[in-house]
């Protein structure tokens, strides 16, 4: 570079701009990655002549504005790697990629991937960055451009770029558009078990886990298995208590009251002190604890009345409130409320004691790094003190305990301490109400001892409980709540995926898609098909026209009646949209004719290879890539497959076939497959290592025109291979290919 230093234009005079020629969201496995990316074609114009080391102050500016860039390992594969490149000199496209990613990270999006590649046009780059959410990624890219241009123009003394503001804006977008933390933790747990997730709402937490008939929906902590009736019961506290009591679960005695007088009467029946709360309220609103005086009870009644549809009065249960999370009949997490009190010293006022004994705790503070909030004296605190006969200025006697706050945030994880009988009671309570996921509110003095011996009780059963307190407890270890919910919806032995066959290639793929769909339908599966002549559900054409696209494939995966799916993937759709699925059981690449792919986006055999390999990349370990053995480029792809390789070939003597059937071909997971489908003497054979099974004579397969139609024969072989790998009975395959007439004209 230095050799050109003298000839290049002056940096000050240069037109510094970054232009986006095109931005696309590839919402699925694609030429860059198996994860969604934003792909931008970026023209850096004259900046092509100015790598980062040649721009005065640029490095310093960027590294101080975005210090966390130090985590980017980049070229050198180590912490600080990217900054080193930046210092040594790299081009704007590459920097744009890293800054976009970092802005997304700072806004709270999950970790990412990025690439920047030159194109054949000078100064034009393709930049791809992870894009879990399209709008967030687009905004991050735009902000990254602004930031870069600001850094390039920066001279000491200028107003620096408002990184904080940009990140706050993105964070706001993430908060409103991305999954909430509870849902995110479930989706992450699903991902770690390789269970796919599809968001069904652009905003909000409705997510489908799994595909087709195997799918389950979750909406935060509610699932397809949460009965609406159970939720109704949980909202009716009186009914819930009656049901719990009938099954011997400890609950506070109580009843609904209809007037202030009635409240006092009930309090005397139950025995003082009592708790007063609205029948259907939640989150502690309008809840009054440990009342003994008639005036207190009557005024609490009036306030509680305003909150809900009725007022409930219950015996006071001594102790701290705990929240027990039950998932699928199992206690998964438990947390304890932050109940605080001070002890008098005979000198200090309560206000002072709060500062000395509570807020001095280093764990308490306003920032996010503090697990516990400081105690502020508010209305509730004042009422609590009043009940005990104090004001904030009272001076309690030496050793006198004063309750300041009863049930603050559920901050303390106590999962490991819960007594087994209490865990069983919580699980029973969830079962009685009928909830698969329930938050059980329980009051106990010591959660590690049985409830009965301490007079503890279950006070409420909640549907759709918050998970955050268990995922991020202030004190104690996070609990695998997402994992438990995923395990509940998809027990380990259950598959979340339906058989998916993905087909790509240069030509003839539509017919092949139809043929495989027919074989799957014959095997008894409700099959969805998206191909370039329509969208079919179980042989019924739902939509006409080219449906070999992301949206139609997604629609099929969302369809709860679909047991198997066949997707034709044209190279255009793969380039512009990515695949609609993250894994398939069979990935077929039929053939390669490079010229059919060349154009604006693809210019070299390598790029065609990178595109077509996407179909092989997504094959699941238990699945297979079905490849045409006569194409050297496809044979090369075999090494990229997670699953088995099944070759098909018109020529049974092809060395690739011979070698494969003799020694097997290992994919990246080391799966050694030796299967192939070939033709010899006008007959189709299923070959597995040294064993051969004659399947059908080509004469009996009408569409091959007695074996003369070469493309049709190859399609038949590919379909047979796919069906074979899906475990379809050879007799069904034979019948299917023998009766197939409906090749459309492509």
């Amino acid at each position, binding site marked *: 570079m230095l050799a050109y230093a003298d000839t290049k234009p002056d940096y000050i005079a240069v037109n510094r701009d970054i232009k986006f020629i095109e931005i696309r969201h590839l919402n699925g496995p694609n030429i860059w990655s198996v994860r969604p990316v934003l792909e931008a074609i970026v023209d850096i114009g004259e900046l092509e002549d100015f790598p980062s080391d040649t721009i005065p102050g640029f490095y310093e500016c960027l590294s101080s504005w975005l210090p966390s860039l130090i985590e980017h390992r980049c070229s050198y594969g180590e912490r600080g790697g990217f900054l080193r490149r930046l210092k040594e000199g790299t081009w704007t496209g590459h920097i744009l990629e890293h800054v976009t990613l970092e802005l997304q990270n700072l806004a709270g999006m999950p970790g990412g991937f990025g690439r920047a590649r030159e194109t054949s046009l000078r100064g034009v780059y393709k930049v791809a960055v992870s894009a879990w959410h399209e709008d967030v990624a687009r905004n991050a890219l735009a902000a990254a451009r602004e930031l870069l241009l600001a850094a390039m123009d920066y001279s000491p003394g200028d107003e620096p770029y408002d990184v904080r503001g940009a990140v706050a804006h993105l964070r706001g977008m993430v908060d409103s558009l991305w999954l909430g933390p509870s849902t995110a933790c479930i989706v992450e747990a699903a991902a770690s078990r390789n269970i796919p997730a599809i968001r*069904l*709402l652009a905003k909000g937490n*409705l997510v489908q886990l799994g595909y087709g008939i195997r799918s389950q*929906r*979750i*909406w935060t902590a*509610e*699932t*397809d*298995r*949460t*009965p*609406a*009736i*159970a*939720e*109704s*019961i949980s909202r*009716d506290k009186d*009914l819930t208590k009656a*049901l719990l009591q*009938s*099954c*011997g679960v400890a609950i506070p005695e109580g009843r609904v009251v209809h007037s202030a007088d009635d409240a006092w009467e009930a309090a005397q029946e139950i025995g003082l002190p009592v708790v007063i709360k609205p029948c259907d309220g939640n989150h502690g609103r309008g809840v009054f604890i440990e009342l003994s005086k008639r005036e207190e009870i009557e005024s609490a009644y009036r306030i509680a009345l305003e909150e809900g549809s009725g007022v409930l009065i219950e015996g006071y249960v001594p102790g701290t409130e705990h929240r027990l999370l039950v998932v699928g009949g199992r206690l998964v997490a438990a947390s304890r409320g932050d109940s605080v009190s001070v002890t008098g010293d005979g000198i200090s006022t309560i206000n002072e004691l709060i500062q000395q004994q509570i807020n001095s705790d280093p764990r308490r503070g306003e920032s996010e790094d503090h697990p516990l909030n400081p105690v502020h004296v508010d209305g509730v605190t004042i009422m609590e003190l009043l009940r005990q006969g104090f004001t904030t200025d009272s001076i309690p006697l030496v050793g006198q305990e004063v309750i300041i706050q009863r049930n603050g945030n559920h901050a303390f994880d106590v999962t490991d301490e819960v007594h087994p009988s209490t865990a069983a009671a919580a699980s*029973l309570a969830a*079962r*009685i109400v*009928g909830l698969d996921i329930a938050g059980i509110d329980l009051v106990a003095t010591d959660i590690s001892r049985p409830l009965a011996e301490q007079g503890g009780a279950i006070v409420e059963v909640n*549907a*759709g409980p918050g998970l955050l307190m268990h995922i991020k407890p202030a004190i104690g270890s996070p609990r695998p709540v997402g994992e438990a919910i995923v395990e509940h919806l998809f027990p380990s032995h259950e598959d979340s995926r339906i058989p998916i066959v993905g087909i790509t290639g240069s030509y003839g793929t539509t017919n092949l898609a139809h043929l495989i769909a027919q074989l799957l339908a014959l095997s008894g599966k409700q099959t969805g098909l998206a191909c370039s002549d329509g*969208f079919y*559900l179980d042989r*019924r054409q*739902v*939509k006409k026209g080219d449906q070999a696209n992301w949206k139609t494939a*997604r*629609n099929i995966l*969302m*369809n*709860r*009646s679909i047991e198997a799916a066949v997707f034709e993937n044209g190279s255009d759709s793969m380039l512009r949209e990515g695949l609609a699925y993250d894994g398939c059981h069979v990935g077929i690449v039929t053939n390669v004719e490079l010229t059919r792919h060349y154009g604006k986006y693809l210019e070299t055999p390598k790029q065609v290879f990178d595109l077509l390999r996407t179909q092989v990349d997504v094959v699941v370990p238990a699945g297979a890539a079905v490849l045409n053995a006569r194409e050297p480029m496809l044979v090369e792809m075999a090494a990229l497959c997670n699953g088995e390789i099944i070759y098909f070939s018109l020529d049974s003597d092809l060395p690739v076939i011979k070698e494969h059937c003799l020694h097997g071909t290992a994919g990246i997971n080391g799966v050694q497959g030796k299967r192939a489908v070939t033709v010899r003497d006008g007959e189709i054979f299923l070959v597995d290592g040294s064993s051969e099974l004659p399947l059908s004579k080509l004469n009996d397969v009408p569409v091959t025109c007695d074996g003369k139609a070469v493309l049709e024969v190859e399609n038949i072989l590919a379909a047979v291979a796919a069906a074979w790998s899906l475990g379809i009975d050879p007799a069904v395959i034979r019948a299917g290919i023998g009766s197939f007439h409906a090749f459309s004209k492509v």
Partner: protein
Amino acid sequence: MQVLRLRALRGPNLWSRQTAIEAVVSCDTPEPLPGGMPGFLDRLYARFPQIDLLPAASCPEAEMLAHTLERAVLGLEIQVGCPVAFSKIAPTLEADVYQVVVEYSEEAVGRLAFDLAQDLCSAAIEDTPFNLAEALQHLRELYEDIRLGPSTGSVVRAAVARGIPFHRLTDGSMVQFGWGSRQRRIQAAETCLTSLVAESVAQDKQLTRFLLDAAGVPVTPGRPVTSAEDAWVATCEIGSPVVVKPQDGNQGRGVRVNLVSREQVEAAYTVAVEVTGKVMVERYIPGHDYRMLVIGNKLVAAARREPPQVAGDGIHTVGELVEQINSDPRRGEGHANALTKIHFDEIALAHLATQGLTSESVPPAGTRVVLRNNANLSTGGTATDVTDEVHPEFAARMGEAAQMIGLDICGVDVVCESVSRPLEGQGAIIEINAAPGLRMHLQPSLGKGRAVGEAIIANMFKKGDDARIPVVAVTGTNGKTTTARLIANILDCQGLRVGMTSTDGVYIEGQRIDTGDCSGPKSARKVLLHPDVDAAVLETARGGLLREGLAFDRCDVAVVTNIGVGDHLGLSYINTVEDLTAVKRIIVQNVKPGTGVAVLNAADPFVAGMAAHCPGKVTFFARDPDDPVITKHRAQRKRVVYVDGDAIIAAEGNFEYRLPFAGIPVTQNGAIAFQIENAMAAVAAGWALGLDWQIIRGGLANFVSDMQTAPGRFNFFTHRGATLIADYGHNVDAIRALVNAIDKIPAKRRSVVISGAGDRRDEDIRRQTEILGDAFDEVVLYQDQCQRGRANGEVLSLLRQGLEKAKRTRQIKEIYGEFGAIDAAFDDLKEGELCLILIDQVDEALGYITKRVVAG
């Protein structure tokens, strides 16, 4: 006329299988009735002409009054539509006091009818006014208020027809079907299969549209709009004509249809936005409104819905025409009737105004005036059943739509030209409703009603599944708790989670969840409603049977251990052993017809006689193989259980199975006769349930009866070489059985500690010590704290009287208090002696004895 006691019998009872109000009424009239009986009857008929009295044979005045009350209660219930038929009266031992029993379908209605009938009778006696119309109105309102609504009612009826038991969880529409772990719930047209997430999905119209479109089901294009201007933009995107409507509106308020121009659209937006603030623009599809009911992804019923409308005749005003229609007796208010009156309110008037009409307009003959653009039955619309016309492809889309949304039951609103063609190209789904109303399909205004309840039940329960768990009811005078525990133990060996009620608590999987005497229906219901129970063993004592009837409509096995000379006689109008037999027989009368089994003690003639009342099969048991009942039953190749040598034999025809006493520890190798009988009853019950013999054998073998598992049931202690036995036996038969068992245990000297329970008859208390006096050398009498209505010293004196002719007793002590009596027994006890302590306060006494034993 005075009501001495009133009970609601909530299950099969002494009188019938129906729920009933049972009242004890004193029908004594202090003064003669004015005009005598004929005068009374005239006044009665004048006040309640519909009363249906049975032809009065010459019967006492009091009996006639009781009968009048009985028929008045029934008549009132029938007048308001309660499906009831049974009533009867029965005399008691007291003069002019009758038991009046009248069936009810809703307890509160039965109680109110009873009160009103009393008022009626008093009015007829005293010749004061009685407002029948008001009374019936009051009763009817209550009935309409608390009976199950039409939707829920249809599901419940379908369940009952399939033999599925039900239990209302609330006064509303929440109902539980089935028992224990097989239970399922519904709430109107929601079931336990109705997912909360699916309901939320259906509530989001945009999401529903998106998902249905993805599933290839025709939907109307449309979207929510944010302003009048945006409404027009949306109209241009979607293509006119359009509908503008509030997003979450109901009853058609603020809906404008078939809009084409910008002015129309913007004006409609202004109207709609006032209703909810959120407005939707959709493509307008001409055609009829249909409601499709999909259950289990299958189309079950289809109805064409029409908005309320009147047909002009050129003479009457719109207001008059509406009035004419509303005078149709089929039209009522609310959801109870087939049709609802047309609501001629401001919405209707506003709708008329859009057509340039007022309520005073006289539409020309042959014109149709629509009164609101929504077809809800609740505002006067009509529904015509078109289920049979639906094209199979059309029906298939409905099923796919329901599956895509994920609802097991849903109402799909469709607009289209005709249901007899595929939906594609001629219509679309407008929305999907969770918890749809079923009334329009059950009782359409036109066309036939559909078996909707049956479809819902069929989707919840597989064919042949009646959602029941095995239920064994156990009753008798003695041995029922041990028998129940033995049966529970056998079922536990089968791997079932057992719920059991007994006189010492409610047990779920061996855990006691309730204490005290739990042998009544309330406790039985706890077991049947508990989600973790796979099988129930319910000790069913007389008290609960009399108080409330059974907690279940039928049981698989009814075990009656014995009646003997009875217990608790003289209480609750049960005076004789025959009366008591009739009470305990209730469980036998309610075994499952055909396949249910009554396990009866052949040696007890009262129990053996119950066989004639059993609608199922009978297994007899008795120790004596030559018992005539046993031999006859065996000769008929039916099941019997008896003792042969050192084993219990179960025999049926040529089949015999032998269970040696050695394998049944509770019998102490056959030494304790009453435990043999309990084991025989348990064997017969296990056999009746079809359990494997290995399981039955195992259940008997590992059964432990000690102070922990069976407090107060023949608990053994050893103290300084002497044997102590504590038992809760408190009636003649129990004491006889104990004496029998203790006689086989060698001892130098025998002593017994006893108090009497005051609520027994005098002769029963005396009889207890008569038996003991012949078997024990020393008797320690004590008076316990609870005298159950007796004067101080009364029971002691009865006990003493029983000992007057004692053949063996030489020494009698009298002590106050149970602990003192126990101390007295302990103090005298020497090696090789035996002492039986008949404890009363079970837990406390056992605790005290244990403490003394431990102290040595």
